[in-house]
């Protein structure tokens, strides 16, 4: 047989460009040379955040009509083959440090986690499940914003998700957002920042307008830490910036406080 190594054993760090052996990433997928967090898919994220074998996915979203934007079907197929998922959002019930929650994860590897009719329906389903089962809702966000290929229907996910989220607030259900790299565009202008607690993973890029667009319309150089989690924290938009390896502990501690709430 071939003396060549098996494929995919070596990968390139997206930040420092050095070659990293599979075994060197460690359980948190952090570059051993520069410390950069590699982007995770939904499954990897769930493994890091939830108790072993506690995750049960919600029923899949029923896709009724597909938008016919040129080249879109091919793009979707490519993303499905690459990730093994049908869309850019995965949600279910799970336990975090023995406390039951509804958790939804956006997948930046699937068309950059963009918000479309199916992702929006999935998020609303997660919110409704949290409401009907009276469980805290944790949304792990990674998104480039609204998915252009579905036009106005992508935009309308923002107000419809917010409408459902308001019902959780009225019902006294805890909501937590964890913003990961990248969290941009319409997602930040709707549900991402509207939770009771908003955390960001260290090093995440978070913003509304894209850097390139801002650069095109403004001649001045952008601040060096522009649209970083650290800058947003300093400006008071985030409750904490957390290392990847500490996220689960943080969530667990916050969930635990609920045991001290008076139950009517």
């Amino acid at each position, binding site marked *: 047989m071939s003396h060549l190594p098996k494929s995919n054993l070596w990968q390139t760090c997206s930040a420092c460009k050095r070659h990293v052996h599979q075994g060197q990433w460690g359980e948190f997928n952090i570059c051993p040379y520069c410390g950069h967090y590699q982007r995770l898919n939904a499954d990897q994220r769930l493994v890091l955040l939830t108790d072993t074998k506690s995750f049960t996915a919600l029923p899949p*979203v*029923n*896709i*009724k*009509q597909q*938008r*016919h*934007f*040129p*080249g879109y079907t091919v793009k979707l197929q490519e993303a499905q083959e690459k990730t093994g998922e049908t869309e850019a959002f995965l949600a279910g019930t799970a336990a975090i440090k023995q406390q039951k929650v509804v958790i939804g994860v956006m997948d930046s590897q699937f068309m950059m986690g963009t918000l479309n*009719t*199916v992702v*929006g*329906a999935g998020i*609303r389903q997660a919110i409704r499940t949290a409401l009907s089962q009276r469980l805290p809702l944790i949304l792990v966000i990674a998104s480039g914003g*609204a998915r*252009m*290929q*579905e*036009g*106005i*229907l*992508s*935009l*309308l*996910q*923002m*107000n*419809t998700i*917010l*409408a459902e*989220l*308001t019902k959780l607030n009225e019902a006294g259900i805890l909501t937590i957002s964890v913003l990961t790299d990248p969290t941009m*565009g*319409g997602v*930040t*202008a*709707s*549900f*991402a*920042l*509207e939770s009771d607690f908003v955390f960001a993973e260290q090093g995440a890029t978070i*913003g*509304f*307008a*894209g850097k390139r*667009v*801002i650069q*095109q*319309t*403004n001649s*001045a150089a*952008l*601040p060096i830490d*522009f*649209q970083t989690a650290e800058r947003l924290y300093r*400006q008071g*938009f985030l409750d904490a910036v957390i290392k990847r390896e500490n996220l689960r502990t943080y969530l667990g501690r916050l969930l635990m406080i609920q045991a001290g709430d008076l139950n009517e």
Partner: protein
Amino acid sequence: MSDALKVIRSADRIGTQQVIAQLITNFFPLHGDRVSGDDPALTVGTGLFHQRAVVVAGVNRGATLEERQRYHFGAVAPAGYRKFIRGLELAEKFKRPVITLINMPGADASVAAEDDGQNLAIADAITKMNGLRVPNIAVFLGEGESGGALALATSNRLIMFTNSLYSVASPEAIQTILKGHVAAKQTLDHILPMQAAALKKLGLTDVVLPETGDLVQSLDNALQQQLAQLSKLSTAELIEQRQNKYLELVAQFAE
């Protein structure tokens, strides 16, 4: 599409100031968001519409170059959305219907807007409009794109002039991602509905107004008619009608 864009972006397109001057008496504008300053790109105020007290919020694009610079070309800043929320709170306090007038480019793409929390200001405004306890009617005088337009347009009724458009991003931005894909005879509106007639077919737009005759006069009639319908609804019915309209529309595609 390009003809329509020329019309709605031209210097003599009807704008917020003209509509207010002709339809609202005793108009009194709010100034500032009580946090960071005043955004001249968005006029928010209260006045009388056929003897009925209303709150009006409208984007200013400006006609002359000087005006356009002063209004920041209609790119509403975070302070504008916060002033808008002040107007909505005033409307709820006095049970006044809200009318929004939209002709604006996409987001205010600037370091200042990002640092001032543009995303959160927009999200707050959408949330407030979603659950507004009084009737709201959105009017597209021209174009409206991205989350900022959504904040002004989430309403019980959507009125659009024929040439106006409502889109996730500017037609130019969508053309860019379409490059190399578009079939020559297909128009952009055909691929992605964004103009008044296509959005009416989709069930998003309620009233399409013609571009002929006196535009302000036909807007006047449409507003009176829609307000009369909405004034029959209770607070709970208004919220339900508004939220269900959007939820039912998106549920047609995925649920």
